[in-house]
């Protein structure tokens, strides 16, 4: 062999070897992935994340890279969900490169790059039109021993969108490493949820750059518990905020909530111009002789009734409302569009109003969170009337004036366009208490059949919820819905009459009148035990064993039930259950039985006073709940002559 040929051959071998070596060396070694020892708990999972690395590298005020890497091992069969990956790919979070590899137990290898991976539009629950996209791919044929590795590099041009990082997932994580690198002269703020905010390590790199590191090991899988507050409040995470002024439609200062409020004020101002459409709407509702409150009420109900929810999120559409005039023309828009119409119309009518950015309660309320744009996911309106301020959500199609939907009660809000802006907690109920009251009269005849007359009064969020049941009843009569809602325990009951007053949200409360015949109400016996409690007041069973998270009792509310039972002649009341009265910081319950001339009366009242019960008092609350359940099940002893 000639030296030149040998050299060429060697060069080719070297190049191939180097290429293979570099290809392999860039990935987590499969043998190591398979050899790693797992704890008993980790081994029970369907899959484990062996390594998750996130490196946020802020290069300067206009450029940041985010490198994400995840190595996952499949432990059990049928874990196809673990093979599906979705990464956002948008203008603000732009995918530069993706490398993904799966190595199957038989040694077969599957490699993907961004060229193989489709960029698909996101189909959000409410977003009808959006240019948000994601890179979505899946590895199929997963079986125990499959090792997958994904590496994604993002480019972020606007530092307002530096992402948060979670340190816990639905499957165990053996090793989680997070690095944040930035120029020392850029001020960074870090907010920590459920973990230490301070980094494990701070390194100064070449004088003008800093790197902070957080490393966590053997993180157990997150297992949500029943009736817990929103999970994001308990998932360990770091929120990174660059305390600079950003350009996001207009100037955004993330150093304070005031900065965010001012930014949104600027961003929405141009949309809140009154034109012919708004002018006509106001003219039709601001009738002579109407007080400010009456005008505000009329305008609110007009927007609530006429505009339907359609979200259009092109460009800044997810943040910036569309022009009020355009929305009036189309009669559709999302929360911010509808709120802009409402606030603009109220202002045009001479009534002070403000937009309010809101974080719905279902995604969690955090303690002193740091300012960020992504904290909010909804917009409503605050109207300032001579009698006081109230909050209005025009997208709630069944809410009475001044009543917030239950998903907003107790949520965080930020009033836009005011000095001294800071997070507020939206009220429970609003102008009304959340109260459900029933007065039930049951008259039993000799055969054990009963005639029931029930009056049910709803205020606060109860009106919203019950109107909703009857609003969305395609093809079903109101009587059928009422039977399902109120007489489900009596399958043979027949509704004789059902009427609703205040079904329209322009009424302050909803009153339902129900008359029914219940053939199987009491057993045809000489000695019988009768359970008179209708309309449940019991709390669901609370799992207290090994509970990690607090208990969410729901939005603060009050139930008041009165049941009067009239017995036929010859039926003797032999014993009434004992009363139960209890009270603690979280709830109050009173249940009493009294004899009446023709039978007996049962009164029950239950009030939820604090919505979240910490774990250290859960046993007390479960004890109380158990007592209430027992009282609810109590029966009256009756003897027939």
């Amino acid at each position, binding site marked *: 062999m000639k030296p030149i040929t040998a050299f060429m051959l060697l060069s080719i071998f070297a190049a191939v070897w180097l290429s293979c070596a570099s290809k392999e060396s860039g990935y987590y070694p499969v043998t190591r992935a398979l050899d790693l020892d797992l704890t008993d708990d980790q081994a*029970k999972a369907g899959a484990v994340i062996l390594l998750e690395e996130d490196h946020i590298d802020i290069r300067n005020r206009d450029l940041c890279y985010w490198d994400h890497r995840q190595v996952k091992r499949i432990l059990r069969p049928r874990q196809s969900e673990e093979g599906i990956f979705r990464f956002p790919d948008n203008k603000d979070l732009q995918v530069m490169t993706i490398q993904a590899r799966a190595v*199957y137990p038989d040694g*077969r290898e599957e490699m993907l790059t961004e060229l193989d991976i*489709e960029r698909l539009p996101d189909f959000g629950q409410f977003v009808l039109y959006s240019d948000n996209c994601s890179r979505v791919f899946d590895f199929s044929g997963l079986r125990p021993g499959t090792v997958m590795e994904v590496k994604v590099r993002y480019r972020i041009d606007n530092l307002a969108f530096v992402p948060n990082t979670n340190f816990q997932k639905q499957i165990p994580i053996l090793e989680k490493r997070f690095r944040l690198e930035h120029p020392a002269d850029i001020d960074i703020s870090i907010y920590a949820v459920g973990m230490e905010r301070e980094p494990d390590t701070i390194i100064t790199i070449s004088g003008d750059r800093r790197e902070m590191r957080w490393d966590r090991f053997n993180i157990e899988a997150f297992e949500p518990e029943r009736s817990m507050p929103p999970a994001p409040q308990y998932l360990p995470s770091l929120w990174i905020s660059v305390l600079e002024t950003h350009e996001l439609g207009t100037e955004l200062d993330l150093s304070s909530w005031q900065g965010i409020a001012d930014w949104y004020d600027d961003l929405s101002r141009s949309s809140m111009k009154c034109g012919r459409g708004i002018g006509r709407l106001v003219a039709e509702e601001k009738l002579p002789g109407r007080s400010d409150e009456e005008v505000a009420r009329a305008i609110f109900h007009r927007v609530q009734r006429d505009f339907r929810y359609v979200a259009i999120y092109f460009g800044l559409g997810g943040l910036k409302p569309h022009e009020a005039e355009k929305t009036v023309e189309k*009669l559709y828009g999302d929360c911010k569009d509808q709120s802009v119409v409402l606030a603009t119309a109220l202002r045009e009518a001479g009534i002070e109003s403000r937009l309010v950015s809101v974080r719905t309660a279902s995604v969690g309320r955090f303690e002193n969170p740091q300012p960020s744009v992504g904290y909010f996911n909804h917009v409503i309106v605050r109207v300032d009337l001579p009698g006081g301020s109230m909050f209005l959500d025009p997208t709630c199609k069944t809410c009475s004036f001044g009543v917030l939907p239950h998903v907003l009660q107790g949520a965080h809000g930020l009033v836009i366009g005011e000095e001294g802006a800071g997070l507020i907690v939206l009220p429970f109920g609003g102008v009304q208490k959340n109260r459900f009251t029933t007065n039930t009269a049951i008259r039993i005849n000799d055969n054990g059949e009963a005639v029931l007359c029930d009056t049910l009064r709803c205020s606060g969020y109860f009106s919203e919820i019950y109107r909703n049941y009857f609003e969305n009843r*395609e093809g079903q009569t109101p009587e059928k819905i009422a039977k399902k809602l109120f007489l489900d325990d009596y399958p043979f009951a027949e509704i004789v009459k059902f009427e609703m007053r205040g079904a329209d949200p322009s009424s302050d409360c909803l009153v339902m009148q129900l008359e029914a015949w219940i053939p199987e109400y009491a*057993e045809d*016996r000489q*000695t019988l035990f009768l359970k008179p409690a209708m309309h449940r007041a019991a709390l669901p069973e609370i799992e207290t064993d090994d509970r990690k998270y607090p208990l969410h009792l729901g939005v603060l509310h009050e139930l008041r039930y009165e049941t009067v039972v009239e017995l036929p002649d010859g039926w003797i009341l032999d014993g009434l259950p004992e009363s139960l009265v209890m009270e603690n910081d979280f709830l109050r319950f009173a249940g009493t039985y009294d004899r009446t001339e023709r039978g007996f009366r049962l009164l029950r009242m239950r009030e939820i006073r604090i919505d979240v019960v910490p774990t250290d008092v859960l046993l007390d609350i479960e004890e109380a709940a158990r007592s209430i359940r027992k009282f609810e099940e109590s*029966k009256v002893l009756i003897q027939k002559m």
Partner: protein
Amino acid sequence: MLKPRLLAMIGAVVIPAMVMVLSCQQAAYYGQDITPELYPDNSAIVLSKSRIHECEFVLEREKTHVWGVVEYTKIEEHTKVKILTESGLEKFGDMISLVFRKENSDYEVEARVISPDGKVSDVGPENITLLEIGKHYKQYRIAFPGLRVGSVIEVEEKIKSQNGDMAGRWDFAHEVPTLRSELVFKVPSGSKVRFNYAPPRGDEREITPTAEGKYDIYRFVMENIPPFNRERFMSADHVGNPTLRYYTYHISNETQERAVGIEEGSLKGQPYHMTWHNIAKIYNTYYDHICWEANKKSKEYRKGKNAFIEEFKRGEFTDTESMLRSFVSSFRENYQAIESGYFFRYTNPEEAYITKEGNSFELAYIMREMLTNLGMASSVVLVRDISEGLLDRKMPALNAFTDVILNLETGGNEYWIDPGSHMCRFDQVPWQCRGVDGLWLLPNGEFVFKKVSMRDAEYNRFVNLDKVEITEEGDLNGIAKITIAGQNLILLRKRIDEDEEGRFTEELIDLFKERYPVDFDEKELTIVEDGDDSLVVTYHYHMPDFADVAGGFINIDFSGWIGSSYMDVFEDEGRLYDIHFPYLRCDRACVRIKVPAGMVAVELPKDASRENDCFRYTRTVDMDRDTVTFRRCMIIKNPTIAAGDYEKVKQFIGETYKLDRETMVLKAASM
């Protein structure tokens, strides 16, 4: 390219949201006189819907001297809906088109809104959005502007594609009433078309088309169609929704000659004379192992397959069944099923072998090949999941089947195997495949239709035997022995991932908590037997305040021990569609209750026994000294209850429900 699974994910989001697709062009149907008062329980009215479906074949010059067949499908759909309530605005105010391919489809959409005062406004392009879905697909979305209660929305869609879609399905009813619905199917003249109405109209005669130029035109119109809303425990949609399925099963020789220049009844290798015979042939060809193994990629398969099979050949098995049992178990461990309703389109057993996962067709294919190598001949049986509607023998179609199972006879026994179902164990197939017609593919390339037999109620049993003791305070302590068998067990295994250690027990506890409102110490739950067909567990439980105690009396309610009373099936006033239970089943309880000594019964439920065509019920309650014995058995004898029998059966169930709620009252003998 998007994988079918990803497409299915997109479809899962998109298709349920699709608001409208069909309609007709009748100027008289503007619906001015339609008011909410006429339809107080509906949010909108479909004034009209129509579809003109046209298919054609032409011969076109593809290159300078090459001619090729081009198939065209043109579908025009026209919809008008009047909004009656605010809820109707939300339901019908936005429209999402189907996802369609960019390359070979043209899609046009026009939409307008007719306001309550009669003013017609076109929906401008700013309200119609085209969404690109990956590289190959797109979709339109419309938000109707200026929509109010009383408005009419109108949409015209035109789709032209180079896919020869010669079949379709037309649903005449919608969730709101429909005033008029029309389907026009235009096919090349001389083509033979099959139609099937569901529910059957008793109109079996040949439907004659109208000739129009080179087309035959079939037209179907229905008016004043009530809304279709599913009822619980009904079979597939088409049982209730008036539906017309249609397809061309034979293209005339004239058409083929005109378009293609051939006389044989086949285009591009696919028969256009669609018969069960042809379908069986197509599926049999998929299974042709010579064809398959001749494939260049097959080396890896053969090597792996042989290794897998050799393991079983070498294994020491006492009999054929134990080998088969071990093989099936090992196969399921190695091969995973993926759900795909399109196995007739996307089938590649090669890939399934390599990826160790496949749809039911692919897995059946691989398993059959392996069984053959083990010396056990098996038949592939194609079935239609009964929850998708019964197989229509009059409508031969490749997509008529949803599942593939195997049937084999060995050692004098018959076995059914579902290769793709991890919750089924040996010799089990899910209820969806039982009691239905199956297309058996015979080794000689022929086929036969035979019913897959239904297992009896006793096989699908849920039995609880309890021994409990009640204290003077009414607290209860007990031990239960529960047997869950047959389909009940398959459903349980579907719900619980047996592979997740500890989870199975937890789920069982949750299941029993649903069934009995009890507290029990989970450490006391023991799995006594975990067989293929039955699972037996025991557990200790404690129920504080179980019995009502007052005035020296104790009241015992037995309802916590019974299974379903089926009362929820009969909660409606009436029934439009037949009730269909998934499978025959038996719920049996025997509870021995030790009460405090010295108690006597003052109210004792009488023994009861009743039976009709569908159910058999028995209940006895005895007291012997200090022990009460409660026995109850409820059997579903027949899975179908005709809608016409609803009232009669409801009364029966009502009576048994009352019997189930009868309590027993005891008092101290000294009182």
